[in-house]
């Protein structure tokens, strides 16, 4: 019987890289996944909506974490790339009548091309300089959303049909839940496994020391662009899911604040960890909903205070993020590991 792996007994690299460390953890993970699929039968539409937002955010955050956490390249353009994905999916389904299950990967690929293109400066630029270059990408793409009217519909945007899966129209939160959950699991698994391959190891080595990586024969240019492409693919899928969720695509959904939100997700969750991206995405999605419900509740008792409560809400959001950076700089994932470690040894923690 091995319920938990107390201590490290790994004797080979293969064992070290295993996804399921023990049979027990495998059962737990599968149990969790099955529970996730059972959840919508218990939750109301509002909570399902929050869950859907989390799944979409997880996809985007995993993508950004591959770029920033694993490869060490900062991007302030994730929001715009999501927009590219959304518009691409909208364009494919409206103009060419492509069904959603093809439109989403195609949108991902289109965004990957965009991302790789805007990743070109990354060979010469690092850190702060690169973040400004990607910020420029954000603004250029936002500008294009408004100006490329024949493709994007200009300021009024595009209106697409709900995703249709062999005659089943995915129009409400309940149905969309299964779609977003499935894609979220697929994308997360892909990300997790990617990091165990040569590609992932190349990303890590570039992050840790790019000179050493190049000396080892890793083509910096190629892998940096690949990292941008992979990350943008994720953004594109997240964006196209969002498009099928609301079925209206307007430039206002993909502004710089979205990019910043994604960056804060991976920082709060934990850089360089798929799990961290999941935690961070859930946290950043739930926090404003939580604050909103408090402010609605308080506002119903003191209507005159609504505005003040609203402003406090924004402040609290900022404060929570700052507190996190101060007290848990390695993110929620570290806290999670500490909790796990505690229970591994409990009750004899010596």
């Amino acid at each position: 019987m091995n319920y938990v792996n107390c201590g490290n007994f790994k004797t080979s690299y293969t064992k070290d890289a295993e996804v399921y460390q023990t049979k027990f953890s495998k059962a737990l993970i599968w149990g969790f996944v099955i529970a996730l699929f059972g959840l919508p039968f218990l939750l109301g539409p509002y909570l399902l909506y929050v869950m859907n937002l989390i799944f979409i955010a997880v996809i985007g955050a995993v993508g950004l974490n591959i770029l920033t956490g694993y490869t060490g390249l900062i991007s302030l353009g994730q929001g715009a790339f999501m927009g590219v994905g959304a518009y691409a999916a909208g364009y494919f389904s409206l103009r060419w009548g492509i069904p959603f299950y093809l439109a989403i990967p195609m949108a991902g690929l289109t965004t990957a091309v965009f991302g790789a293109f805007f990743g070109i400066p990354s060979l010469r630029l690092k850190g702060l300089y690169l973040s400004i270059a990607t910020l420029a990408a954000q603004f250029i793409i936002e500008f294009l959303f408004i100006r490329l009217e024949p493709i994007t519909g200009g300021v009024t945007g595009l209106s697409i049909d709900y995703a249709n899966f062999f005659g089943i129209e995915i129009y409400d939160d309940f149905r969309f839940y299964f779609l977003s959950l499935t894609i979220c699991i697929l994308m997360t698994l892909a990300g997790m496994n990617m990091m165990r391959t040569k590609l992932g190891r190349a990303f890590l080595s570039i992050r840790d020391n790019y000179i050493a990586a190049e000396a080892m024969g890793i083509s910096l240019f190629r892998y940096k662009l690949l990292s941008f492409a992979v990350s943008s693919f994720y953004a594109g899928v997240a964006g196209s899911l969002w498009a099928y969720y609301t079925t209206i695509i307007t430039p206002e959904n993909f502004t710089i604040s979205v990019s910043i939100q994604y960056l804060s997700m991976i920082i709060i969750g934990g850089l360089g960890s798929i799990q961290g991206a999941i935690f961070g995405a859930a946290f950043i999605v739930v926090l404003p909903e939580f604050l909103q419900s408090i402010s609605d509740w308080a506002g119903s008792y003191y209507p005159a205070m609504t505005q003040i409560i609203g402003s406090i809400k924004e402040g609290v959001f900022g404060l929570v993020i700052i507190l996190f950076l101060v007290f848990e700089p390695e993110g929620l994932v570290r806290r999670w590991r500490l909790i796990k470690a505690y229970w591994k040894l409990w009750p004899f923690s010596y």
Partner: protein
Amino acid sequence: MKKLFMVVLTLALLVSGAYAKNIKIGVLVDESGPTGDVGKPYGEGIRDCVQWFNDNGGINGNEIELIYVDYGYKIPAALSAYKKFKRERVVAIHGWGTGDTENLIKMVTRDKIPYFSASYSDHLTHPDKAPYNFLVGVTYGDQVKIGLKYIKEQGGDNKDVSFIYNDTGFGRAPFFPIGEDYAKELGLKVVDKQVVDLKALDATSQLLNLSKANPGYAFIQETYMAASTILKDAKKLGIETQFIGLNWTFGQKLVELVGEASNGFMGTNAFTLWHQTDVKGIKFLHELNKKYHPDVTYRKVNYIQGFTSMYVLLHGIKKAGGDYDGDNLKSVYENMSNFDTMGLTSPVSFSKESHKGVHSLKLYRIENGELNPFTDYITAE
């Protein structure tokens, strides 16, 4: 202890029983976000309207309950508020901005919930694209059309026009393509277009370009901030062009911000202003405020907008006679014709072909700090 618990429980049940009869209406307002300056008074107007209805017997004896959400002008927050409205089974929603209204169109249509918006974008009023959306106000496109019509008929020697806008959905809505096409139709020349950001503190270079093209008239689609910048810089540069602001640029606030430079500024405004006490609705609002808010002496035009819009929405529900089904409400609104808003706007009419509530407005001019109409009601058609 047990007794107390039972009493509380009974009370709670009674209260919830009483609430069950309430007519719930969702309200989406921006009080803490970038459009909070106009959103707050708008929301106060909505609330006073509801309170007045409730103090006078509610709707067919049922109390109106507002589910009021300050969404901070963020689209995801608007979506989550919408889910909340749906969970609470609201019969109608009063929304706010262009972006969030657009994002909600499909859901509103599917759930058949009448939706009033504070965004005056024309594309929100087409019944085939947005069958449950309604507007109490003159659309941006119609505002420009009315302005252009006035220039064509009564403008001086120089009838060239220019458009000044911010590069957003809100900014571009009135001019492209509606304003441009209509100018062409009337035979007026659009000689210049300038982009001025909503938060711009300087518009000198844009105005220098404008003065090179020398238009007789320039339309401004901004809010107070940018409008005040434009007017100040125009005065500094000695530009002779006559500026015409669309509704969100026009109000007492502008006079406070720019003082002297606001003299002669024209505005397209569909709502009666606080100082026009000869109008029945304004008299009514003065009395209402004396009763509800004794220390309030002045109300912005946005307050009146909010009040009027809610007034129309609630009257529709009242007319529905107990059947608050979305389809029924929709047909009630679509049959609303020449509904009197106590003179706060020209009469409101919706139809199956158009969900634009108000079709005509007066042109206003600022003279010595006073905002006064100088035309009668003009329509776009």
